[in-house]
């Protein structure tokens, strides 16, 4: 008995909470604990499948959906809102922003229209998130 509980105690002590992250898969915002258990990492604190997936992804390759705007010529508004259609590796966020900063497209734009394809071979496309008709010139 003594021996066993000691072993459990040692095991517990070697479990280190490496990092606490907030799950962003939904507005619940669960706290996920990334725990190093001897040689492997374990995720705890998730409340659904999406949460586990997010934690695992965050561990090996953190990615984010990026939303921003692209300059539009001749549009009802000077910009059209856009998003990445898939999460983008975090390290590429500012590279993407720089590319988008220099982009300019012509109106009209339709929601879902791809404005930039396969950014840096990541498979991530930039798509418009609203319709943007042409500017109607008033007399």
């Amino acid at each position, binding site marked *: 008995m003594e021996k066993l509980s000691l072993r459990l105690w040692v095991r517990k002590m070697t479990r280190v909470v490496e990092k606490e*992250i*907030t*799950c*962003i*898969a*939904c*507005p*619940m*915002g669960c*706290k996920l604990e990334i725990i190093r258990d001897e040689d492997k990492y374990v995720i705890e604190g998730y*409340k659904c499948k999406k949460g586990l997936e997010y934690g695992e992804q965050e561990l090996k390759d953190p990615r*984010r*959906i*990026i*939303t*921003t*705007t692209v*300059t539009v010529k001749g549009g*009802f*508004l*000077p*910009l059209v*809102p856009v*998003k990445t259609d898939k999460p983008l590796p*975090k390290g590429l*966020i*500012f590279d993407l*922003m720089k590319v988008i*900063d220099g982009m300019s497209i012509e109106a009209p734009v339709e*929601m879902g229209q791809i404005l930039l394809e396969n950014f840096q071979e990541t498979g991530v496309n930039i798509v418009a*998130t*609203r*319709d943007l008709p042409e500017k109607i010139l008033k007399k």
Partner: protein
Amino acid sequence: MADVIVIGGGPAGLGAALEAKKTGAESVVILERDRELGGILNQCIHNGFGLHEFQEELTGPEYAQRFINQVKDEEIDVYLNTMVLDLTEDRKVTVLGDEGVQVIQGKSVVLAMGCRERTAGAIDLQGYRPAGVYNAGMAQRILNMEGYQVGREVVIYGSGDIGLIMARRMTLEGAKVKAVVEVMPHSSGLYRNIAQCLEDYDIPLLLRHQIQKVYGKDRIEGVTISQIDDQWRTVEGTEKIISCDTLLLSVGLIPENELSEKGNVPLDSGTKGAIVNSTMETGIPGIFSCGNVLHVHDIVDFVTKESRIAGRNAARFARNELPRGEEIPTRPGKGVTYTLPQKLMLEDPDGVTLFLRSDVIYKKARVKVKEGDRLVKEKRERLIVPSEMVQITLDPEELRELNGEIIVEIVGEKND
């Protein structure tokens, strides 16, 4: 003349108009002051909308576009660039728009005007009043819809969601966000937004901190911040100056009910919106209210849900089909700052969803609906925070069994 006049073409107005049409209202009119439908969603270009409504994650404009497309398919009259000047108890709506001044008689009216931001003046922000002090939502519109940057070195006051979203947005566009300063011991925004908007970009969140002074006569040059204690007193020796050229305020939203007041609609001092019964009818028969003009929501999906109730019952009222019956009051009890609706109509064929907000954070919480000592319904929640609305539903049978005042309370482990 119209069956249902919907004032406001944001998410609440769009949802109400569509539901009114679906319920059988023949003529439905949306009055929108802006140049297009969609309301504030048009400037909320970030994602996170629609998880409840569409089971997928959409951006604000996408969420709006789905409803706008439906409105286009229905025969709903949309008046853009149209400001409502006046509203009477007998549902005459005076508007100013492309056709000049017009009076439209509605069989019923849905108020869906949304909310506005609290300002520097309302929070007694001290020091100078220079250029570069913006409400976060105003800055969001300038960036996302007009295409201008408001500044390069930014401090954000208040950790409301708009402030957090703008911290990320301005960072992505090349600005340096130096800190988010929050007077409360917890953020007033969603946890996920702290993670993905602040932590991702190493933006410090300074809880229990206050801005003491604003510097800069013409354009803001900096702010003095300091820590505050539980009694809101400055902690000596913690004052420091952060230089910045921009201060964004994200210090709360207020339902915009000036028009409702013109129509003599009674308001609740807690929600700052109309007092409604479970059909979303206000104290004035035939005038309904929903969305952020009724109470400030944190998730648009719930605005949509609420707007459907308002739209459906506005259509019923217009067709003389609105069920009438005994009403009983609801009241916030322990741990609850407000409950909505403030009155339950016992004969409501749809049952009712009670919305409520907690006063502080509770862990392992139970939400209890009580009639005197009798427990009517209970719901367990792992975590309840003031920034996230709680819902609890009573079905038609449960409703019919009630006969006295209803008290809603939260019990659980208080956590700050």
